[in-house]
């Protein structure tokens, strides 16, 4: 099973876990869920579409990260998943 993790649970950051999967699934838990949950999910979808990844399980625990941060964490986690040997 291939897994990649990036980020942290510190303020203004997010912890992204990506796992290889048969289908696309995105789970987001954020401190700003009430306002931005759907926007964060949509943003993650767009980043994954940009790099043509649609067979992954993505879990994001967000501590108020900006989009740039979420994107950077996502791409790093994807990269780590691809090079992982687990």
């Amino acid at each position, binding site marked *: 099973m291939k*897994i990649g993790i990036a980020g*942290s*649970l*510190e303020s203004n950051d997010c*912890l992204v876990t990506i796992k290889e999967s048969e289908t696309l699934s995105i789970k987001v*838990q954020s401190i700003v869920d009430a306002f931005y949950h759907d926007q964060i999910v949509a943003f993650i979808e767009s980043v994954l579409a940009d790099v043509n990844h649609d067979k992954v*399980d993505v*879990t994001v*625990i967000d*501590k108020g990260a900006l989009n740039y941060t979420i994107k950077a964490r996502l791409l790093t986690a994807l990269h780590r998943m691809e090079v992982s040997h687990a």
Partner: protein
Amino acid sequence: MIKQALLEKEKQRIEVFLSNFDLGLSYRDETYFIEEENQIIATISLDGHIIKGLAIDESYRGLNLTGELVSEAIRVMTSKGLYSYHVFTKSIYTDIFQSLGFRLLADTGKVAFMEGGIDTIDSVVNGIKKRIEVHFGIELSKHDIGCVVVNCNPMTLGHYQLIEKASKEHEFLIVFVVETDESVFTFKERFSLVYLGLKEFHNILVLPSTSYIVSKSTFPSYFLKELDEREREHAKLDALIFMNYFIPLLNIKKRHVGGETDLVMVAYNQILKDTLKDHLQAIERFTEAGVTISASLVRKLMKEQKYDEALRYVPKAIRPLLKGIMMEKK
């Protein structure tokens, strides 16, 4: 900055700090801490995939030090290839952990057990369910399922008879062998012996207990000599998880336990009884020619190098294998 406690001096200071929170350190714990002006203000400990001993000085609350420490803990575990984590914490901290993405599995009102990362208890138990259904070619919900949880350190005629009796009361019986390696015999040895010893029964399936039944995560004190108040709470967590997840998902009618003489086990069985109620059935311990057969008796004889006498108390089918293992441990 987060530092790892490596020096004996640091560990002693951390123990003093933790004692303010009614927490302790065990020798296996890997502890990380944050200092401010030479004072320890926050700590967290890891034991394999288990997070525990989180403590933050009152005057430093609200700075998300928890987030920092838990992030570090996850980094350390990830680097070891661990992607699923368990948390032991006081019930009052469950909110904090929930905000960090952990899921609450059991709460006694004093201590709580939580999980995070990729595996979830539902997926693990459903995986077991599938394995049972495929093995027996059945649909679980339509059958009468019994269950036994054993450490079998090592397997004896006592275990054999308990399991045989339980297997007659159900259509199918699942035997979980405790996976945590804290015993004289390793998990692999114990599991192989049980598997071999029960091979003749076609309605029994032997499975690893997972990290959710009597494991270091759910019940660290199982492997101790006696239970204090804190450990009773741990035992309750273990019983609650079995009650809330395994019984409904696997359609288990009854969990059978043997009569116990050991103080820890008597206390544990009582807690199980209080939690599982009708789902628990105690079976008298078997005696042979006035001798109560127990794994501790076998271990004692083994220690005294009375191997042939020790083997008399174990099922025939496993004698050659057990003899080999005992010779290796000599």
